[in-house]
């Protein structure tokens, strides 16, 4: 037997409400987004409380898993890490020499400003609420100075950029998301391109000039031209170069430097350069260099 759960009046109200919502969203998209953003302020704050509680449970579960259940693989990991440590010690010695030389060059070229980014440390407390975006939720929001379009990094390299900021949390779109685009630079050849995510969860460097001699193993860093990231932050390593017949540019697959599946803490870049003047100087310097033959 059919059971009517709502009266004609409430059904009509539901239809009218839904029709109004759709009409508002499609006829006045920017205004309705503004209303949703306005409503989202207090809602975001209310949601941050259970979000923090669930995040603490998540962290507890992860620690229990890693501390007890996953110990079986620790021995092999330890052996592998010792091998890596030996390799890195040797590499470190070489890099110390390079650093000393670089510091002298930096002083000469007045490029010191680019390393003085202002950052805010944030904890990863969740993942994107849908399956359609590769995103993270951070426990810092507008109250902590985090705004949309700010870059997010770890000491290892670039993570992504902030796309939404509520009062107490923010959403980061990862480097490997197809909707992300970051200006990149091949460190060895100095060719610039755009780093985009792929549908397979990796990244690729697009618009590499056809005559460029990029090869697998080349490192890609931020070019610093978009203003979100300072110049020279590690993005990843080229793994495969694609040169299609008749195409105007080459494309290369990138293995990201940061393991984006295991992030706990990140840094949000609130100001990529010490001040706007320094950034301007740096950009002028860069453009000046490029004009030279």
């Amino acid at each position, binding site marked *: 037997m059919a*059971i009517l759960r*709502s009266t004609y009046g409430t059904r009509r109200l539901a239809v009218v*409400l839904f029709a109004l919502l759709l009409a508002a969203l499609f006829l006045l998209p920017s205004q309705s987004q503004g209303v949703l953003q306005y409503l989202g302020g207090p809602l975001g704050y209310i949601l941050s409380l259970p979000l923090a509680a669930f995040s603490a449970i998540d962290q507890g579960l992860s620690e229990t898993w890693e501390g007890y259940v996953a110990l079986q693989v620790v021995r092999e990991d330890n052996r592998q890490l010792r091998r890596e440590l030996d390799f890195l010690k040797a590499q470190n010695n070489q890099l110390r020499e390079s650093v000393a030389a670089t510091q002298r060059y930096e002083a000469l070229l007045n490029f010191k400003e680019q390393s003085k980014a202002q950052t805010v440390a944030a904890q990863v407390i*969740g993942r994107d609420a849908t*399956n359609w975006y590769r995103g993270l939720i951070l426990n810092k929001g507008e109250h902590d100075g985090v705004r949309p379009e700010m870059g997010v990094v770890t000491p290892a390299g670039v993570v992504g950029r902030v796309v939404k900021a509520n009062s107490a949390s923010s959403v980061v779109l990862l480097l490997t998301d197809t909707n992300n685009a970051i200006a990149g630079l091949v460190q060895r050849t100095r060719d610039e391109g755009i780093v985009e995510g792929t549908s397979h969860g990796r990244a690729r460097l697009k618009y590499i000039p056809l005559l460029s001699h990029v090869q697998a193993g080349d490192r890609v860093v931020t070019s610093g031209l978009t203003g979100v990231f300072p110049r020279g932050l590690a993005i990843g390593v080229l793994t495969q170069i694609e040169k299609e017949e008749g195409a105007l540019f080459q494309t290369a697959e990138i293995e990201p430097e940061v393991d984006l599946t295991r992030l706990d803490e990140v840094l949000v870049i609130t100001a990529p350069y010490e001040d706007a003047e320094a950034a301007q100087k740096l950009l002028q310097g860069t453009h000046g260099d490029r004009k030279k033959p």
Partner: protein
Amino acid sequence: MKFLLYAVLALVVVPLQTTLLHYVSIFGVRPDLGLVAACLVGFLGGELDGLVLGLILGCSQDLLSAGDLWVNVVTKGGAGFLAGLAGRHMAHITPTVLLVGLAVISCLSSAVFMYSMPPFTWEEMWTALRSTVLIQAGFDAAIGAAIYLLFRRRWSDDRMVTESAF
């Protein structure tokens, strides 16, 4: 009582979705608890209940997602509304009906998400269908049917009536 249940759902479902649900993901795909909740409430409580809860859950999910602010509002609100319409025209809601209904609504919701994103190539669309849409539809349907089976007796005795809440 019902209003309290919806408020608790709104406060629990979305944080749960963003924090703990990755433990039960299949090939990296998690069920959409917001969609399941909106549909169940729509099926059992009617269009208005499904729509209102869907709008609240959608708005919350939009705040914690990288997408545009309208996508979850429309999909969850629409899902609750459609489920309410479907539920009203059915003589008996059985787990099988719920399973199929939820899978269809989940696929429709995914279609709206794909529409909201930059244009897909055929290859990307096929990849998305294989790796996300179908898995999520199956997952949503299974979880919805399981919740219904778990609480079926209680829900058949104590029906949610729209007028008492709003």
